[in-house]
C-alpha cells in the first residue's frame, strides 16, 4: 500500500469521523473500526482486529483510545499511532469544550433528548449487526473449543457480571493450554 499524504489523510479522517459518532462506549467504536478497516478498506484482517481488540481491552485507558493507537501503529508505525490517537481525541475535546460553555441548556434540551433516544436505537442496531458477523465468523469453522469458550465467556460476563480482566486472563490461558495439548498429541508445532 502506498503511504503517501493521501493515505495519512484517509487514516486520520476515518478515526476522526468514527470518534465523532461514537456514542455508547468503547465497543461501539471497535465495531465501527472493524467495519471500516476490515470490511471496507481491507487494511486489517478479521482475526488481527480481534487480537487488537483484546489488547485494547486489557490495556489501561479508554478502549477507543487504545484501539486507535493499535490500528494506527499497525498501519504506519509510531507516526500512524500518533495520527490516529489525535484523530480520536479531537472530536470529544472540541465538542466538550464548546458544550461546557452552556452545558445546562444542552443537558436539559428536549430536542437533544429525542434525537439521542433515536440514535441510541440506531447505535444498538449497528453493534448487533457487527456482533452477528463476528459470531458467524467464530462458528463457521465448526470447531468445538472456540464456540464453547464464546458461550462460557458470554454467560460469565452477561449473566454473572464477572470482571473483564478475569475473562481475558482465563480465556488466554485456556487458549495457550489447548495449543500445547494439541501439539503433544500430534507431536508437531502449529
Amino acid at each position, binding site marked *: 500500500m502506498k503511504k503517501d499524504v493521501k493515505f495519512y489523510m484517509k487514516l486520520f479522517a476515518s478515526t476522526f469521523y468514527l470518534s465523532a*459518532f461514537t456514542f455508547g462506549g468503547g465497543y461501539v467504536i471497535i465495531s465501527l473500526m472493524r467495519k471500516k478497516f476490515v470490511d471496507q478498506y481491507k487494511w486489517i484482517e478479521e482475526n488481527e482486529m480481534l487480537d487488537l481488540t483484546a489488547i485494547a481491552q486489557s490495556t489501561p485507558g479508554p478502549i477507543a483510545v487504545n484501539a486507535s493507537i493499535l490500528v494506527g501503529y499497525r498501519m504506519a508505525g509510531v507516526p500512524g499511532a500518533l495520527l490516529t490517537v489525535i484523530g480520536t481525541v479531537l472530536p470529544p*475535546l472540541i465538542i466538550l469544550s464548546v458544550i461546557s460553555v452552556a452545558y445546562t441548556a*444542552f443537558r436539559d434540551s428536549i430536542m437533544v433528548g429525542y434525537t439521542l433516544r*433515536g440514535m441510541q436505537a440506531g447505535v444498538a442496531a449497528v453493534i448487533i449487526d*457487527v456482533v452477528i458477523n463476528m*459470531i458467524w465468523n467464530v462458528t463457521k469453522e465448526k470447531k468445538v473449543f472456540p464456540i464453547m469458550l*464464546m458461550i462460557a465467556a458470554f454467560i460469565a460476563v452477561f449473566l454473572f457480571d464477572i470482571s473483564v480482566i478475569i475473562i481475558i486472563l482465563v480465556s488466554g490461558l485456556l*487458549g495457550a493450554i*489447548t495449543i500445547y495439548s494439541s501439539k503433544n498429541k500430534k507431536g508437531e508445532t502449529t
Partner: protein
Amino acid sequence: MILLTLYWSFFQIGLFSIGGGYAALPLIQNQVVDLHGWLTMTEFADVVTLSQMTPGPIAINAASFIGIRRAGIPGAIIATLGCITPSIVISLLLAYVYYRYRGLATFQGIMKGLRPAVVSLITSAGISLVLLAFWKGEAVTADLTKIDWLSVGIFTLALFILRKWKVSQIAIMVGAGILGLCIYPFLS
C-alpha cells in the same frame, strides 16, 4: 501549576482505569471531586450525563470539560494529553510485542483463546445497549407498557437495512436520530 496538576490527575485516571467505560467513573470522581474539588458531586453527575449525550470516552470527556473550566483551552488539551499518555506508551509497547511475537505458538494459543472471548464481550455490550434503548434506561421488566416501542421500531428497521444493503453505519445513526427527533414529540 494548575496545568501540571491537571496533567498528573488525568494521567492517573488514564493509567488506572482498566476495562473501559464505567470502570473509570470512581477514579474520576476520586480525583476531581474528592481530592481536588474541581467539581461538586452534582456537576460530576452532569459530566456523566453529558458524556452519554456526546461522543467519546468518558475519561476524555471529563478531561476536556474540567480542563477548559479550570484553565481554558490549554487546560482541556493538557488534561486530555495526561489521560492518553499511559495509553500511548503501553499500547505502543504491546503493539510492538504483538507484531514481533505473534508467530510464536504460545502467543497464537493465547490469541486463539482471546478471540472468542472478545466476541462475547462485544455481544454482551451490544445486548446491554439494546436493553437500554428498549427500556429507556430503566429496569428490564415483562410489562409491555414500559417498552419504548418507537425505539424497537427504529432498531428493527435499522438492523434490517444494515443486513440487507451496504450502507454507512454513520448514515444509520444519523437517520435514527432524525426519526427520533421527528416522531418522539408526537408520542409524549
